[in-house]
């Protein structure tokens, strides 16, 4: 059961048999959905660590000033 590429040109590929809007909007939504839910947690982690680092530096500076 071999399959071949269903399109003979890039414009045919983009056209999707006349269903370009439907197919490509679905894949765009899907791509956005995947990207956001992978990238956002990664950025969030960096922010959390940054904030925790600032907080611990602040607390250390605070105790220093008590000498």
């Amino acid at each position: 059961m071999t399959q071949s590429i269903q399109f003979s040109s890039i414009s045919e590929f983009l056209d999707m048999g006349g269903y370009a809007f439907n197919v490509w909007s679905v894949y765009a939504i899907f791509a956005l959905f995947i990207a956001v839910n992978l990238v956002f947690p990664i950025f969030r982690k960096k922010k959390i660590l940054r904030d925790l680092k600032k907080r611990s530096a602040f607390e250390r500076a605070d105790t220093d000033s008590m000498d």
Partner: protein
Amino acid sequence: MWLWFAKLGSPKWFYDVSDRWLPWLIGAMSVFMVIGVIWALLFLPPDYQQSFTTRILVIHVAVAGTSLAFFPLMAVAGIITLVWKMKLADMVAKNAAALGAWFSFVTLATGSIWGSVMWGTWWEWTDARLVSMLFQFFLLLSVVALRSAIEDADKAAKACALLSIVGCINVVIIKYSVEWWNVLHQPASPLSMSSDNANGPEFWMATGVMIIAVYLFFIVSLILTTRNEILQREKRSQWVQDIVRAA
């Protein structure tokens, strides 16, 4: 036995183990995603009725199927939280709600875009599956809202656990709606590989790859958000402070 159970509930254990597993899971997810998308977009033959819109179904089926896992997951985590008071379970459940809302939304959107072509309508209020999936979307948003509405973290956890258990009833409705009622949304096509099936074996194989890819994505995303939750809730602990210092 309790020691093993307690260890399983340790956030640090989860953090360390997920550290080791994440690269493999992300790798596997990426491979399946790339293969699935390229297969669907480039290689799937046009259906004799649906032309190239079957490519939409590959995505829609994978996301829709996985979206049904959220309430069961949150309900199990909720029961563990309520009965054994295992904090880790709640840490997983907390972020699952928002991710589930995304899944439900994408299910509805992709299904609607496909329906606009194949059924001639973007929506159908008399279809039980559509309405119950919409309800799931709102219910998941409600869980998110409920969590932030309750100040006390423990009370919030309990409330969300209860709502998640109730939400599972809707999942049963979503799944069986196409069999119980005469609806627009077609019943699950028999998963036969014969080529006289409405969707040929190539479609089901591509969809199978996509289902695995989306499931892996679900696991990866959930692990990433749970790890963040752990870092925040356990920030006072020595091991988190070590990580912060090293960051």
